[in-house]
């Protein structure tokens, strides 16, 4: 398929701005020391604003536009009914400070979602407060720290991470001032011997994604858990790849003490072009006393909020979390049910293994064994033609395919990380494989100059960073200088 994205030379709204000053009489009610005299914002007819953003939307690619196999991001179809539910005034126009007697509906949704997520993840309790996966990690590490301090283990300030870990794992640990010990992988898996030597009296936690970012299930997870627990360390599960194991196993069953869940991945709440997400955190009993406040309660009749939690870590964001996102996840779980969620894992894993099978004779897929929900191919052989993975990725756009994740994880050279998800058909998978195979045989120049059919040609990201212009103001200043 040849794809042609819409292309408009759409001006900036700021370019259509006319200078306006505030009528002085308007401001008499504003304290004299604070009156504002100019406001350089556009003043356009409504329909022109709508056209502007409609055109911009047509220069944007979403799951509804086409295949979006972005590895580690689980870009599956976002059901429309969840969007309709989120727009109901009973969801949208509810204030979080309302008396609990007036918000029994949403409290029930959140309470039941907690229960469902606890069952799915094999954990004893769940907090819905974190706004995203990375904030879930931050919350989980705060919980681990509170647990250590409470047990006189203040010396535990080290976090162990495999070299395949997501960047957020490192950053979340760094934000809390923990030292990081990075473990090199062995054959695409955690090196259990190296782990045994790495953990000790200063280890707070091991953070692990399983299946890992190569899509490989860490088969020695039981031994990994034993080693960490014997050393007195906790086990943190990065739930980015939970989609692969729904109903097959769970973080709790594997021995993890803390897990976050990305609702915008496994439970298909739309990612909004960057956000919102939600990052619920599940814990085993031992960590329950430290969960953020308030805790949702249910006495068999009424849902309530409990604030009196002396050991709680406090709060990580205002109020109760991204409630409208969480409600979508709740609706999705209801619609799938136990049977549907298990089929999710079946199809996601089948699709990934099938696609790997189709690709691996053309681009190597390093490391032995099965894959779960994703696989990482290497664009290394293309280098001989003077082409990089980035060029392949850009060329895929011309076929109407959003490129997979590229250059991650770092231990695969010229990495191309493909996660098809369960909602794609065999026809779509075959079209992707055919496109990749065909591209590897195309004229290298066609790749290096790609994309040809997107709204713009190859974007110069180096220039953007060399002279950052982040606003109309900065642009006007730069022009003036």
């Amino acid at each position, binding site marked *: 398929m040849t794809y042609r994205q819409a292309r408009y030379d759409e001006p900036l709204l700021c370019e259509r701005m006319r200078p306006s000053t505030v009528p002085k009489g308007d401001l008499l009610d504003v304290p004299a020391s604070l009156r504002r005299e100019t406001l350089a914002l556009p003043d356009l007819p409504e329909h022109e604003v709508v056209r502007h953003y409609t055109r911009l939307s047509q220069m944007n690619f979403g799951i509804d536009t086409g295949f979006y196999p972005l590895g580690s991001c689980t870009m599956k179809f976002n059901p429309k009914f969840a969007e309709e539910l989120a*727009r109901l005034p009973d969801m949208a126009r509810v204030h979080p400070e309302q008396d609990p007697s007036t918000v029994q509906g949403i409290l029930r949704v959140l309470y039941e979602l907690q229960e469902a997520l606890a069952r799915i993840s094999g954990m004893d309790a769940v907090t819905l407060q974190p706004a995203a996966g990375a904030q879930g990690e931050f919350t989980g590490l705060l919980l681990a720290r509170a647990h250590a301090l409470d047990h006189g283990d203040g010396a535990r300030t080290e976090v162990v991470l495999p070299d395949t870990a997501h960047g957020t794992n490192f950053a979340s640990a760094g934000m809390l001032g923990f030292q990081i010990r990075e473990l090199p992988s062995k054959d695409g898996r955690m090196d259990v011997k190296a782990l045994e030597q790495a953990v000790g009296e200063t280890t707070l936690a091991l953070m692990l994604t399983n299946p890992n970012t190569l899509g490989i299930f860490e088969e020695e997870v039981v031994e990994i858990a034993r080693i960490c627990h014997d050393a007195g360390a906790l086990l943190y599960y990065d739930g980015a790849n939970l989609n692969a194991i729904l109903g097959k196993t769970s973080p709790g069953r594997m021995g993890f003490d803390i897990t976050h869940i990305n609702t915008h991945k496994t439970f298909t709440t739309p990612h909004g072009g960057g956000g919102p997400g939600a990052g619920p955190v599940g814990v085993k009993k031992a960590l329950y006393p430290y969960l953020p406040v308030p805790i949702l309660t249910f006495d068999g009749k009424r849902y309530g909020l409990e604030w009196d939690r002396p050991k709680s870590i406090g709060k990580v964001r205002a109020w109760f979390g991204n409630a409208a996102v969480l409600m979508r996840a709740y609706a999705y779980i209801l619609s799938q049910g136990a049977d549907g969620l298990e089929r999710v894992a079946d199809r996601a894993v089948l699709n990934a293994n099938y696609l790997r099978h189709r690709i691996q004779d053309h681009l190597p897929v390093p490391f032995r064994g099965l894959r779960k929900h994703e696989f990482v191919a290497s664009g290394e052989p293309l280098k001989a033609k003077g082409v990089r993975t980035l060029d392949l990725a850009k060329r895929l756009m011309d076929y109407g395919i959003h490129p997979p994740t590229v250059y991650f994880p770092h231990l695969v050279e010229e990495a191309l990380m493909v996660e098809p998800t369960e909602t794609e058909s065999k026809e779509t998978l075959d079209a992707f494989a055919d496109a990749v195979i065909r591209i590897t045989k195309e004229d290298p120049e066609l790749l290096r100059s790609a994309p040809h059919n997107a709204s713009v040609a190859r974007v110069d990201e180096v220039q953007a960073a060399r002279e950052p212009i982040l606003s109309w103001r900065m642009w006007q200043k730069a022009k003036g200088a």
Partner: protein
Amino acid sequence: MLRALGLTSVEELFADIPASVRTQGLDLPQGMSEQDVMRHVTSILRHNRSAEAMPTFLGAGLYDHFVPASVRAIASRSEFYTAYTPYQAELSQGMLQSLWEYQSFICELTGMDAANTSMYDASTALGEAALMAHRITGKRQILIPTALHWDKKAVLRSYAAGPGLEIEEVVYDPETGTLDEDALRAAVGEDTAAVYVENPNFFGRFEEELEEIRSIAPSLLIVGANPIALAVTKAPGDLGADIVIGEGQALGNAMNFGGPLIGIFACRQEHLRKMPGRVIGITKDANGDRAFCMTLQTREQHIRRERAMSNICTNEALMSVAAAVHIAVLGASGLRRVALDNLRRAKRLADRIDGLDRYTAPVFDGGHFNEFVVRSTIPYASVHRTLLEKGVHGGLPLRTRFPELGEAALFATTEVHTEADYEHLLHALEAVP
């Protein structure tokens, strides 16, 4: 597909999961049809009493503003909402330009040079601003007002845990409800990294002496702003702020029971490389045409890892797009009209409540925006209860968090309220036994 893989059952694809950790299915009900899900969830949510069903006078950082249908129509375009983070710039120009325009509008409102595409909410924006102030100055003390929402204080403490920042509170003047300048003078010291002030503050009061506060603070000044109020009040940048944060929900987004929201975050150009979060820059494509892309990514987690400016990855981008559309639909004049309307409504409602027996409003002297403190001569808990019985939700009770204010509550009003809503509230207040 199985045949191509040489397998006979899907189960074989899970052979790498050790039997000892295998679970047999999920302990959940079976799936439901779309129609049943819609019916079920709608009926549960009906147990909420939304601002549509019950006049609600809550604010405290989150406001029920009227959102033009055009804003929802654009934010519902699935090209926007079903996209991931715009890692691939060429396919994502629409999102990137919209977010760049959002950054531009926020910079104009705040008087800053650079804005990121969002933090999670105002409270995490405050946490991130404190960490940024520490990165810039190397100092550890953060001064915040006592008159601040308790969630923001708690979230700030969580963010401060890593570098061990010391959070100290500066009391408010009991007459004016604004920051006590003498207390601020006494609190600032050599180790002060930043002073945080909100304008309008938690009590809805304008901090009229921001310039004086700037001169007292030798450190960085972080200002928490309400983007609607900024349409008629001086840009914090023009008053000496170094970092401006705020809750952007008032711009085109629903209350959503507290999320998703938008943490506004903006700073001066000189501190740009110390700023957390995703930012969009302007550049050219291979043909020399204008194009947009994410930039300064070397500050971020996927490259800088544990030395990143923040761990943030997923943010609230779609909410920021809605905010930009909201600003554009209202325009400069519309935004100003809404701001003045909200300012006047707060004053008018306070005066009307003050006219009732047993109530004083506003408790603090001076200009207010959106909200104000009301004090009653009877226990506020019983006022709160009676209002609910009469089908109206009063303000936020302050008794447990600010006991020094006595029987007080924080009442907010916006353009969504009708004269009937006000009458309803006033009658209910009078009817309290």
